[in-house]
């Protein structure tokens, strides 16, 4: 008789995982195609642009990926509304409850405690479901979608927008679109990558966003506040599931590696372009 595997804690729903995968695909597509234009003066951009099938195809990929990302965004908004109805039952509990994505008092305390912890002046804070840096990442995407999305639309339909905007607004939109994209890609492929994947204890990557599952012991250690709350409420058992088969894990890792490498490649390319080929 085969031994039953240890149960794992389920952190992300299936939809959340799917949205993140779509987010990765669209984000990397946008980054590669966009950067190939932004850093057009580098030989890498030239190579990439031709690899992707020319600037027109790259442009089409860029716009298609943008639509996917907007769909991801809208789906997420609908998911929040669904969660409010099914799980939180009220906006109040969604926004002010312990599992809220919004910054609250605990985040401020956690941040201060983290600083102390980093400085070896205290213990690791008892992080809850969402840490403050995760919340920062989350809202960075909100901000990014609005800023990059709106300026992107202006550049996509310049003839329409110049019916009520001056021509130079397109130049301004270009700067905002491009620099905000630089910030987004730079941030995701360095800070986010480190905080979630490349951090020594998670190295080389944390696949929880793909599997949705985290070993119970690790969860207990990582998010003590959430664990404690669930145990107190007696709801922990509702979140325990069997781990995936090794083949699934392997597939996930291949995807993860691909995304990670592409992201790091883009970062290196950006740094190269900024330092050695900037014009």
């Amino acid at each position, binding site marked *: 008789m085969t031994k039953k595997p240890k149960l794992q804690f389920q952190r992300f729903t299936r939809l959340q995982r799917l949205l993140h995968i779509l987010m990765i695909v669209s984000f990397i597509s946008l980054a590669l195609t966009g950067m190939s234009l932004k850093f057009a003066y580098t030989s890498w951009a030239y190579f990439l642009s031709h690899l992707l099938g020319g600037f027109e195809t790259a442009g089409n990929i860029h716009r298609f990926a943008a639509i996917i990302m907007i769909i991801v965004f809208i789906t997420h908004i609908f998911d929040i509304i669904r969660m409010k109805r099914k799980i939180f039952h009220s906006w109040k509990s969604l926004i002010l409850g312990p599992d809220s994505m919004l910054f609250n008092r605990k985040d401020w305390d956690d941040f201060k405690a983290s600083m102390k912890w980093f400085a070896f002046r205290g213990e690791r804070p008892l992080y809850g479901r969402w840490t403050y840096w995760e919340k920062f990442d989350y809202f960075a995407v909100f901000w990014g979608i609005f800023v990059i999305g709106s300026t992107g639309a202006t550049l996509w339909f310049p003839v329409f927008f110049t019916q009520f905007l001056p021509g130079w607004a397109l130049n301004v939109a270009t700067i905002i679109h491009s620099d905000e994209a630089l910030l987004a890609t730079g941030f995701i492929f360095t800070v986010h990558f480190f905080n979630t994947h490349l951090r020594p204890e998670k190295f080389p990557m944390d696949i929880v966003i793909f599997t949705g599952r985290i070993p119970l012991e690790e969860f207990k250690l990582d998010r003590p506040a959430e664990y404690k709350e669930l145990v107190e409420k007696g709801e922990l058992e509702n*979140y325990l599931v069997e781990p995936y088969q090794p083949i699934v894990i392997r597939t996930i890792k291949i995807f993860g590696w691909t995304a990670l490498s592409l992201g790091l490649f883009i970062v290196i390319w950006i740094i190269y372009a900024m330092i050695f080929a900037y014009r």
Partner: protein
Amino acid sequence: MKRLILLVILFLRFYTFAQENGDCLSCHDDKTAKGSRNGKSFSVYVDEKKLKGSVHIKNKCIDCHVDLKGADFPHEEKLKRAQCGACHDEAQKLYSEGLHGKAKAKGDPLAPGCVDCHGNHDILKKKDPRSMTFALKVPFLCGKCHREGSPVQLQRDIPQDHIIENYSESIHGEGLLKKGLTVSATCASCHTPHRILPHTDPRSSIARKNIAATCTQCHMGIENVHRKIIKGELWEKEAHVLPACVDCHQPHKARKVFYDQGMADSDCMKCHANQGLKSSKDGHSMFVDIAEAKDSRHNKVACSQCHSTVNPSKLRPCESITKKVECASCHAAVGEEYKLSTHGKLFAKNDENAPICSECHGTHHILGRRDSRSPIFATNIPKLCAQCHRPGQVAAQRIKNKADNIIEEYRESVHGKGLLKSGLTVTAKCTDCHTAHRELPSSDALSSINPKNIAATCGNCHSGIEEKFAKSIHSPDITKTDKKLPKCNDCHSSHTITRTDGDNFKLGVMTMCGKCHEEIAKTYFETYHGKVSQLGYSKTAKCYDCHGSHDILPPTNPASHLSRQNVAQTCQKCHPGATRRFAGYLTHATHHDPQRYPWLFWVFWGMTGLLVSTFIIAGAHTLLWLPRSFQWKKKLKELEEKEKLDSAEEPDTIKQNEQGKE
């Protein structure tokens, strides 16, 4: 008394038998009146009107028909011929000495008499256009007998053929028949009207020693214009060695070109047909392939016309030749051009590498430029010039650094491909830009490729563009400046010129603009258009898409593509529906200029500030985390190992819940 009687008789006769024309016409004005001779019947009708219109209006019938004087009516049928010589004794004399007269005297039925040329009752003055001997009609008159296929031409010994055809195409025939120049030479001008003699007869007007006199009746002072061919002093000192007019200007075929000298060539060929003939000086072959010469453009030019100092009075006529062939004697204008050219200047300096006429055109086998075998046939020209201008060859060595591989470059250029691959002989060849005979370096003001002249040179084929360019801001006529203005070749290059619809050109030409418009080109590459072009795609606005190419004007000029009136239309070429406001897009924007583009400058630095501060905060956070993270890694590893040990004993108490909260 006897005398008196005779006088009376004469007097009486005169009165009694005075035959008025009317008397004759009383019978001869009958249109049906017929006579017969040797059994043949013919009309004896005389048209009174014609008779009255003729030069002989004052003469009586019997003045010519002298044998009828005093004859009774009806007179005898068999009459003597009208005796023209009775009055025209001079003409009659010449006639009887000439070929026609002698043949007539011998009873040659084909020999012409007076009436054959002059008519009979209707003889008109030769200045009367209706006259058979009117200048314009002379060739037809003579042609009656001397045309191809006529009995005279077939049965008599006439040394020339196609006389009338040749004449009508000759300069004389053309002048007479096509241009109506009645002063032009007709048959009679050279052969005389009445005493026509073969050229072998020393009395003949066309005898070798008389021919010059015959020709100079009209061509007075002709020796003055022949000095290029025949040295002036020879005309006076050694006239006997001179060729006769017809040696060069063939009779009946005379044109403004030179003609076969006949036997002279065969004299030369006596020696030069020998394949083993060598120069006694340097041993080079002196053999002349006559077949080649006959095939050449100069097939009607005699040897001695080019090898001009030949002296036929010498045993070896060519021993007097001391000079090389001087083509410019005939091709004078070309010769002048050549003297101006670098080739000609080198030749004047006795440069042994200087190309002379024969190096490009050949010697005895000179062919026209439309002959595909000719070295100067369009598609052979690059090869011809390459002989000296290919890297390593004499010209390339002399013109250091510049003449690098021009031939190969030309081959790959749009002109070279057009010429050599597509066989478009109208395509620009070396000689079209550099000229065939006056090639000069571009630094020479006379050069066809001098910056001042290059637009006109290109405009030879690319017409219309030159005019456009002349009105543009780049034209020296419009912009007065000390700075260098672009010429055709600055953007299109010269030997490497490519098609303008290829990406290489479309993108490459922007570099050309950038050479002078450095700052504006740099800022262009900061915009979307510039970046796409940098990626190597031409399907984006490039300099000339907005500014135009040959018709560039400043935006302040209403005719400019970028003027207030035209700018939206220019944008619409790619952006349908673009408005004036759309055109406000800064196509040469830079965010490095706070004065001109404050919005861009501050937005850029705002964004950069946001970016830098975010990275500083997040980066610091991450770095601070690092030591703890390593510590935490150890802790997790311990936990993992502990779990491995535990899992062996610990029973699975937690209820399985596959669905979870999904």
